[in-house]
Each structure stands twice: as C-alpha cells, then as structure tokens.
C-alpha cells in the first residue's frame, strides 16, 4: 500500500504570547491508501485542525503535510484549491451543499470545476445517485432533502470526482442514529469495494466501531495510534 498522506512534526498554533494555544503539537502520522481511519478525541483536542491541515484548508505553523507526494506548504492558494479539487473529497458536519443548486448540480460541482465533459459528468452523477440511493432526487434543492439525504449527496459530491482521499468532519453529528448508521455502512462499502481512503474526525461511537485505525488526540498531541485487530486482513 502506498502512502497518501504524510505529516511530519505538524504544529498549528493560534494566538501568541500568553494567549498562545497549541491546537496541534508535533503530530506525525502517515495514512495509507484504502484506510478507513478515525481521528478521535474530546472537544478541543485538535481533531478538526488536523483534518483541515491534512486537507490543505489551513497551513501549519511548523511541520509538513505531504499529500499524494506533494508538499502543500509550497503551493499558492490557487494551486492548493486545484489540488483539493483534484485529490481530496470533503464531507462536513452539515450545511455541506450549495443551497441554490439542485442535487445533480451539487454532485457535479467539482467535475464542472475540473472541466469534465458533460456526457462523462452525467454518467458519473447518475452512477452515484444509484449507488447512494438518491434516485429520483436529482432535481431537488438541498432544502427539499432530509438531513440524511443531504449527507449522502455530500458523499456523492466528494466521491464523484474520484479523489485520492475523502476527509469527513463529524459527518454524522446532525443525523439521527438510524440515518447515521446507514450513511456509515454506505461509506464503508465504498471503502471496501472501491478502495477509497476515508479519514474521519469524530467522537461518534458508530464511526469508531467501523474504523480500522483510531488516532487518539488529546491537547493537540497523538495520545495513541491504534490499529484495530478485529479488522486485520
């Protein structure tokens, strides 16, 4: 398995002097292709900060993030945007979707940015709608979808451009238990069947139960990096 993410002595500090907050302090982790991992820890432990740094949404105070062999530190804002567009899929807690676009338009958003031809776009979108059980909802706007359906659309959007990795920040936080399980099972299935790499930031037990690797964070430090034996090949 090749490494899709390498972080080396990653630090992210906010503020300065007495008000300095070390959100992440010297975190070095590697993520291999096809992983289904969760970054866990209490609130304020640095989960979202780590996920944002891995995704190139923020730049570290010190250290390096190497994504698919590229050090993101050296990239311009525009190059970083292109990199995110082409290599990373994001799923956030809620309000993921662009409200004025339909389900289909939301799913094809990234592909439109990539300049994927119309016929290819449509093919992939309908494939995703089918896989994620969203048939018949293509024309609806986000406000006309349930929370679970919206998250599935967000997953579809994240996956449809075939990124190297999907980063999900508390994807089940606003879903009821049943919908959350359904969504996670679907993501797990995609991971198994298509070999997609998923990294979650969460404190949802349902995600932890399904993750093959748990990265425990506390006060910005990696407390434990645990490979789950029950998932060993």
């Amino acid at each position: 398995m090749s490494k899709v993410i390498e972080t080396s002595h990653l630090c992210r500090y906010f503020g300065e002097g007495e008000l300095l907050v070390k959100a992440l302090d010297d975190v070095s982790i590697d993520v291999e292709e096809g992983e289904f991992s969760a970054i866990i820890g209490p609130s304020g432990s640095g989960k979202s900060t780590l996920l944002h740094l891995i995704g190139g949404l923020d730049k570290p105070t010190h250290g390096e993030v190497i994504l698919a062999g590229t050090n993101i530190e050296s990239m311009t804002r525009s190059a970083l945007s292109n990199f995110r567009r082409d290599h990373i899929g994001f799923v956030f807690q809620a309000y993921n979707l662009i409200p004025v676009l339909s389900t289909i338009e939301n799913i094809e958003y990234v592909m439109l940015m990539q300049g994927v031809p119309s016929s290819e776009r449509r093919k992939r979108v309908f494939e995703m709608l089918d896989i994620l059980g969203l048939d018949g909802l293509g024309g609806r706007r986000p406000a006309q979808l349930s929370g679970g359906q919206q998250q599935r659309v967000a997953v579809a959007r994240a996956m449809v451009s075939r990124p190297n990795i999907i980063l999900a920040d508390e994807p089940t936080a606003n879903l009821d238990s049943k919908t959350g399980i359904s969504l996670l099972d679907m993501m797990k299935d995609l991971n198994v069947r298509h070999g997609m790499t998923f990294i979650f930031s969460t404190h949802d037990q349902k995600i932890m139960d399904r993750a093959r690797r748990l990265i425990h964070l506390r006060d910005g430090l990696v407390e434990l990096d645990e490979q789950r034996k029950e998932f060993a090949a």
Partner: protein
Amino acid sequence: MNLILRLAWRNIFRNGRRTFLTCLLLACSLIALVLTDGVMRGMMDLMVETTTRTFAGEAQAHKKGFRDSFDVDLYIEDISIVANKLEADVAIEAYTIRTMSGAMMSSADNMAGGLLWGVDGEREAKVSKLKEALVDGSYLTGKDNEILIGEELADLLSVELGDRIVVTLSQVDGGELSQALFRLSGIFKFGMREIDSSMIFINLAQSRKILGMEAGAHQVAFNFVNAKDAVDPESATIRSLSTGDIEAASWVDLQPQMSAMLAMVDFSLLIVGGILFLIASLGIINSMFMSIYERIYEFGVAMAIGTRPSQMVTLIMAEAFFLALLSIVGGMIVSYFLIDYFSVAGIPMGDMEFEGISIHNNIKTIFDISQFTVLPLSVVALTLVAAIYPALFTARIVPSEALHKSL
C-alpha cells in the same frame, strides 16, 4: 450557462428583500442622474433660447471692430451684401437689420441715457420677442415718430402713451448732435432689467435719418432653422458672412459667459453623478458584505471542495453585475416615463433669474440617447468597481476559518 454565472444569478434571489433594496438604491441613483441630466439640458436650452430668442438672435453680423468699441461710425454701409446672403441661405429662419447708438431721452419730467435701436418692425418680430413683450400701446408700424420704451424707463421718465420724448444722439461720420421728437407709442416688458430700463426702439428708416446714415446698419441679427447650427464652429453661414470688413459670430462667441456656463453644467453633472454613485457604492459594498457574511460557511465549503480564489472573485463580481443589470432595467423604464412626462408638462420653476437671464417658463426635460446608454453603463461600471473590495475579501477567505463560523 457557466456554473459561476448560474450560481451568481441564483444567489441574488436568495434574499429578495435585500436584492430589491440594493436594486432600488441603484435604480434611484440612475433615475436621479437621468432626470438631473434631462433637467440640466432643458434648463440650458431654455437659457440659450431666452438669451438668443429674446432679442440678441442666435448669431449676428457687424462691421469689424464694432463689437469691441460700439463706435457708431463702424456700420455696414452696404447692408444688401449681408441681406442677400441670408435671404439665399436655407439654413436661416429669419434675420433683422438694426442700427444702434447711445442716446439721451428727455421727457417733460426727467431725462435718462439709454441705447437707441432702429429696427424694421416686421423683421424684428420674426427674430426677437419685441412684439410679444409689448404690454401697452401699439407696435412699430413704420411711421415716423413711433417709439417703444421699457416699463422701467417709462417710470423713470414718468411718461405715458402719447407723451413726448426727445431723443438726442451723435450722428455718424462727424459726431454732429441730432435731436428728434417722438410720441410714446408702446411700452414693453421683457422681464430683463437691462432691456426694460435702458433700451428704446424706433423705426429703422427714421433711425438712419437721425443718425445721418443712408442705407447702412450696425447689426444684422439672425436665427437658424436648426438652433444647433449656431453652435457649429464650422457653420457655413457664419463663414460666408465673415468676409471683407464684416464679421459674423454665433451666440457661442457673442455670449462667452453662456458657453462657459454650459461647460460648467457638464462639470457639475459629473460632480452630482460622482456624489450619487459614491453614496450608491457605499450601499452596494454594505449590501454585498452582509450577503458575504451570511454565506461565509458556504464559501468555506465551496473553497474546500476546490473553488479557486479567482472563481470567488468572479462569483461576487457576477452577482454585482446582475444586481446592476436588474437595477438599470428598472431605472431606465422609470426614467423614460419621467423624462417623457416632464418633457411635456415641464417642471415649474417660478420666475428665476440666472446670470442676469430671467426664466419664466417651466423647464422641460430633454431626452438624450446618452441618458440611456452612457449613464446606465456608468452604473454598471461603478457597481463593478464598488464590488471589487467585497470580491477580493471573499477571495481571501481562509476555508478553515470560514468553516468555524457559526452555521
């Protein structure tokens, strides 16, 4: 349609009330500017018309040097040269021949100085408003001893219709004093103090006689069929008349203060426009920032999934463009009806005196194509300029910070 443009178009309808208010602000700015332009053009036209059509005429011909010295000896001896050219020129609506000299008027009670004009009553009525300005008595019929004076001068001399007035003046080519007795035949009121208090009109033939001229005249005033010909610096009429010792000039040269005022009006319109757009720009910036802050989480998501900063700039600029487009459509429709209405009904201004020119009529707005091309395009351009700062702000949003903003 391009995704960003589609997004921008739909985004502006997300908060209908804010979009309506922003468009209203822009549309009102455009309406105010179009109306100001229409009124200014109307006022200028009225002032030019008042200046030229009241008495002076749109253009005049004199003997060279007369305009500088008003020397009675500088008169056009063979007036037929000018008259024939004007008769043959299809661009000319009417012309009138005048003598002019300083004179002393005496009545039984008082005496006063003034300007004595000898005019052909019939021709004069076609060029100036002398006949229309008559408030008492009768107009010049060509008979000897008829004299018209202004209301203020009549008060000063304490004369009534039929009273005797003695005019004393210096003759041409020698300066011999000449006197003539007149019976007051008419009193006029132009509403311009300069004319009403010091100008006297007698028949051309008698004026030539008492001035000792045979067939000459000091001035030929004329109006064009199309008033715009008068402001043409390349006017063929003016050029053809300006030969030998005769010089012709339009009101643009004869009334330089009026030309300067017109230039000033253009400049003041620019200032009014600048102030209006500054106010509107602040409104646009405010509205756009409110809209950006409302959507900051959404922008964070959009940037996280790969929307480039330049695309964010395009999005905000496109939203501003669509706002401006909606505004100018509305603004132009309302402006058209207002300009059309006031071009007929006019705007009542009361009795107004501006730069010594009395304006009594309503100011009628004037339609000009630039009001519906240049001004709306300026609104679009300035809206886009106002949107640059919010657009750059959006492009600088850090996705991780935006995603931490409250949902």
